[in-house]
């Protein structure tokens, strides 16, 4: 069991827990969409300290986890080529493809590099004119402006040896897919604060109205998450459904307008396949026609590559909140962070990895 003194302000944390307990009169299920929030919840034991009637469901908010197997296989194919420098954020390296991961490609001699920023990849392209530099452009709305700028810069600099493998996903269509599904059991959502720092909050109003569901924009620190939960429960108990912003110190209604403009310039909306979930309409971004020549899928002719998922892995159900990670039979057995079967076990923001890291060792029964 976790204790309040792990919060940086235990007194405030206690008062928030007390308040949530005081106002809760019936069962509610709340989904946190952001993987950073999942991590904070499991690490601080927020789900265990809440009243039993308030259940947290961990949503699909980890871009590493929802990048489809087919896209990972494309990355592995491209990264194995001798003239390629393949650049990625570090947490993509251990995501399993059908038969291997980027780490293995690297140890087999592939030039795979971890970069901090997509601009590092653009600079690498400039410094290595005899190589093809490919950047693995994944992420939610938070990351898209950075990736868009990288492509824009490469175009301005006339770099014909730079391209991006794009698998961008969008939060509002994922929320809609969950809340609009016939077996939905989510009563309210914590929306991801950093996504909203780019996109603003205005996109969520229509969802609140259409589905009569409270959505509270929430940060990712433990106290932020707790305050977000308190606001959702208060709305639910009052029979309200509103869009609320509990992260106003970072998020404004209109978001970051210059970043939105760059994204609009470089990307266009498309359908996307979400790993473990399946196809969601208009739920992603791909390069706009004016930038298509920077698309690694075309440059390396891997557009049609596709791959079936592992049958053992239940990450799709985890990502949709249907089961908790420890209800998967492979959890902690065949599947560990060292030998991940699904991407939710790879990234530190994935629900399976968070449970493995914090729940297996605390003595809390994990159902295996």
């Amino acid at each position: 069991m976790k204790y309040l003194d792990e919060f940086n302000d235990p007194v405030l944390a206690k008062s928030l827990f007390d308040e949530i307990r005081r106002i809760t009169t019936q069962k509610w299920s709340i989904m946190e969409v952001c993987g950073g929030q999942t991590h904070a919840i499991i690490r601080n034991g927020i789900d265990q300290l809440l009243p039993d009637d308030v259940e947290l469901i961990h949503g699909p908010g980890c871009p590493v986890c929802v990048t489809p197997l087919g896209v990972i296989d494309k990355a592995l194919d491209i990264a194995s080529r001798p003239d390629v420098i393949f650049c990625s954020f570090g947490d993509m390296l251990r995501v399993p493809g059908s038969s291997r991961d980027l780490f293995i490609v690297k140890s087999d001699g592939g030039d795979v590099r971890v970069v901090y920023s997509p601009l590092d990849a653009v600079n690498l392209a400039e410094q290595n004119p005899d190589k093809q530099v490919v950047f693995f452009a994944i992420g939610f709305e938070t990351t898209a402006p950075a990736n868009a700028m990288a492509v824009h810069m490469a175009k301005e600099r006339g770099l014909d040896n730079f391209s991006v493998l794009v698998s961008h996903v969008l939060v509002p269509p994922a929320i809609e897919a969950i809340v609009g599904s016939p077996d939905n059991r989510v009563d309210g959502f914590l929306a991801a604060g950093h996504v909203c720092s780019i996109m603003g909050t205005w996109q969520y109003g229509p969802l609140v109205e259409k589905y009569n569901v409270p959505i509270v924009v929430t940060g990712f620190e433990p106290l932020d998450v707790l305050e977000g939960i308190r606001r959702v429960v208060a709305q639910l108990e009052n029979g309200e459904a509103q869009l609320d912003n509990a992260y106003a110190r970072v998020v404004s209604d209109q978001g970051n307008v210059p970043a939105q403009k760059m994204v609009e310039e470089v990307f266009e909306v498309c359908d996307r396949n979400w790993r473990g979930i399946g196809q969601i309409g208009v739920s992603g971004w791909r390069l706009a026609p004016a930038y298509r020549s920077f698309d690694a899928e075309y440059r390396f002719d891997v557009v049609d590559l596709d791959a079936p998922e592992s049958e053992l892995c239940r990450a799709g159900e985890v990502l949709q909140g249907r089961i908790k990670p420890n209800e998967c039979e492979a959890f902690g057995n065949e599947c560990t962070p060292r030998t991940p079967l699904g991407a939710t076990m790879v990234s530190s923001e994935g629900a399976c990895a968070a449970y493995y890291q914090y729940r297996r060792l605390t003595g809390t029964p994990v159902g295996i």
Partner: protein
Amino acid sequence: MCLAVPGQIVDVRDERGIRMATIDFDGISKDICLAYLPDIEVGDYAIVHVGFAISKIDEASALETLQMFRDLGILEEELDVTGGVS
């Protein structure tokens, strides 16, 4: 990779028409891009994600968040300065 870390702008410069800055994250320096926060100035704090300042933040919140990253021991991991596999 989704997290964003607050830091303080130390200097601002123009690199080939793009506004760049050196930013200090609790002792770790990084070059970052200011294209999306055109009005931010030296001394201000911003939330930074994969090399881009995306949102201005007040000093007190920034320091509190940095403290949390330090407590969790994930500041270096988030900034990819641990060496890792690169």
